[in-house]
């Protein structure tokens, strides 16, 4: 009994130390973003700020066009989330509940494209976007989301396969067409899976740096992820503002993570991909 207690104690010590090690950079980021620039230079190692300078946040907001970037990020996220959930649900439905010729081939191709590195198609995609006149437009990032993403199609297909067949048969008897089955029965029953796709796509677009780097040129159209990097190049020495801006950029993702923690963790545990 006594042994079990001391063992438990040491386990807690180890876990706490590890937790501290992994969260310390984030804790430092938050507290240091509230220090005065003078204190950051004089004593960068103190945990709590001597004087709490909340002004860093408004200052960071004005130093970069934060509102503009935020708006662009939100437009991109809304567009890609809508596009990805809708298009991937449609395609996944055709792979699981419509028996069409060639669907097996399509499924194999979809799995195959998941393994293709983005670098291979990067150059032609860029040329295509330019030819379509979408270069330097937010559509360059939104539109491809409407054309399906292999990983999400796979994820939704796996989920649709688990829907009870009897329910769909009942719907058919009640006179629902293929679209009705999809829209009235399939989608409402698949909310958790659709939420997973939406959350993953949101996080992906919010964090995406290479898309804007490739396709956007006009600072008016930059999303936060890219704008923040520009900020680093321009204000590299103003650590206090840099940290404040990084915190503001990160907080929405952290909030989303805590709201949808189950979705995050199950999505990764069951499929293992993405991220």
């Amino acid at each position: 009994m006594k042994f079990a207690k001391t063992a438990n104690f040491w386990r807690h010590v180890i876990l706490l130390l590890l937790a501290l090690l992994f969260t310390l950079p984030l804790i430092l980021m938050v507290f240091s973003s509230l220090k005065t620039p003078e204190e950051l230079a004089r004593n960068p190692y103190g945990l709590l700020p001597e004087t709490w300078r909340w002004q860093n946040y408004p200052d960071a907001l004005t130093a970069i066009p934060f509102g503009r970037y935020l708006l662009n990020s939100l437009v991109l996220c809304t567009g890609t989330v809508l596009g990805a959930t809708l298009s991937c649900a449609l395609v996944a439905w055709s792979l699981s509940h419509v028996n069409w010729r060639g669907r097996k081939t399509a499924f194999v191709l979809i799995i195959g494209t998941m393994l293709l590195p983005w670098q291979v198609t990067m150059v032609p995609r860029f040329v295509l976007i330019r030819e379509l006149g979408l270069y330097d437009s937010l559509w360059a990032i939104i539109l491809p989301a409407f054309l399906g993403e292999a990983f999400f199609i796979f994820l939704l297909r796996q989920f649709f396969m688990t829907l009870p067949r009897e329910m769909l048969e009942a719907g058919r008897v009640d006179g629902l067409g293929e679209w009705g089955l999809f829209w009235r029965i399939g989608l409402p029953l698949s909310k958790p899976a659709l939420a997973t796709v939406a959350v993953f796509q949101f996080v992906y677009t919010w964090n995406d740096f290479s898309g804007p780097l490739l396709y956007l040129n006009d600072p008016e159209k930059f999303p936060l992820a890219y704008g923040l990097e520009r900020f680093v190049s321009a204000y590299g020495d103003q650590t206090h503002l840099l940290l404040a801006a990084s915190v503001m950029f990160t907080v929405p993702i952290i909030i989303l993570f805590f709201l949808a923690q189950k979705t995050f963790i199950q999505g990764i545990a069951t499929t293992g991909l993405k991220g």
Partner: protein
Amino acid sequence: MGRLNFRLTKASFDQNLRFLKRHVCRYAGNVVVSLMMKRRNLIGYLFASPWMVGFLLLIAWPFAASIYWSFCQYDLINPPEWVGTENYRRLMQEFREGRGFAVALQNTAYYALLSVPLSIVVGMGLAVALSWRVRGQAFYRTAFYLPAVIPIVATSVLWMWLLDPQDGMVNYLLSWLGVPGQNWLTQSRSAFSVAGLENAAGWAAGKNQLLLFGSKDALVLMSVWAVGNAMIIFLAAMGDVPESLYEAATIDGAGRFRKFWHVTLPLLSPVILFNLVMGLIKSVQTFTSIYILSEGTGQPGESLLVFSLHLFLSAFSDLEMGYASAMAWVTFVILVVCTLLLFRSSKHWVFYSSQ
């Protein structure tokens, strides 16, 4: 009974009618069924159309174009001009002379060889710690996983600050352990290289300062910090190990360590393979953090000029689309060969419980 009868009697007439009814109906039924099948096809195509368009535009055409352009000189402004195997020969030459592509390959290999196994060891270690039955598991899990959800741009900014040679926190903590400050992001020499080992030997002989870690080691450190995804996969797999196996091992007198070695590890080996392959693919594709740490240059020296950055710079700063395409394909082939080798080797170390 089941055929037409040409005698003109009532009975044969009835028989003929029955025959026609049965067969015509069956035939008509077949037609309807086949029509429905076609309607099915049509419905299927309609549902799958977003992917079909996407596949043609974003996968199939780019795939073909990229192969074709790899044999061309193409600067985005003038039309592609066929140059045969010129781009591939240039890659070969750079490879022999140890510059350009060869540097990119070396850097990528260094990063992959260090970060992938380290992530697996650390991810598994954390998963083991999380599988202990103590209070507050959920809290610890969140704490370990949190770095993996931080946007990579923020992670890069944060670590650039933490790894600052003058007043970065990492060097400060190292100084507690008696390790001198390292030039994390300003030194091109890496720890596990000939030059790095020479530095360590010189330090041991008291000739020079110990300046081991360089920019690629910083990158490895960042990737290990954000190890959450691999950890979650290991944790889920550990939950699937049947309790009875551990009980049997306990009865056989196995201790904690032997249980891990003989029960947990073999049952996790398929997941290790999975994480190895995914980690390999991910490490080769890593771009954002490297771009930000080196401000898009691959500096210090060419130490951060990994494959993905070299490809990006060749394409969009040198406007050499042909050369970039050829490089993408060569690297893709190398990646596929490495993955296949991993799968091949898995016969010897991966244990599938269904066997």
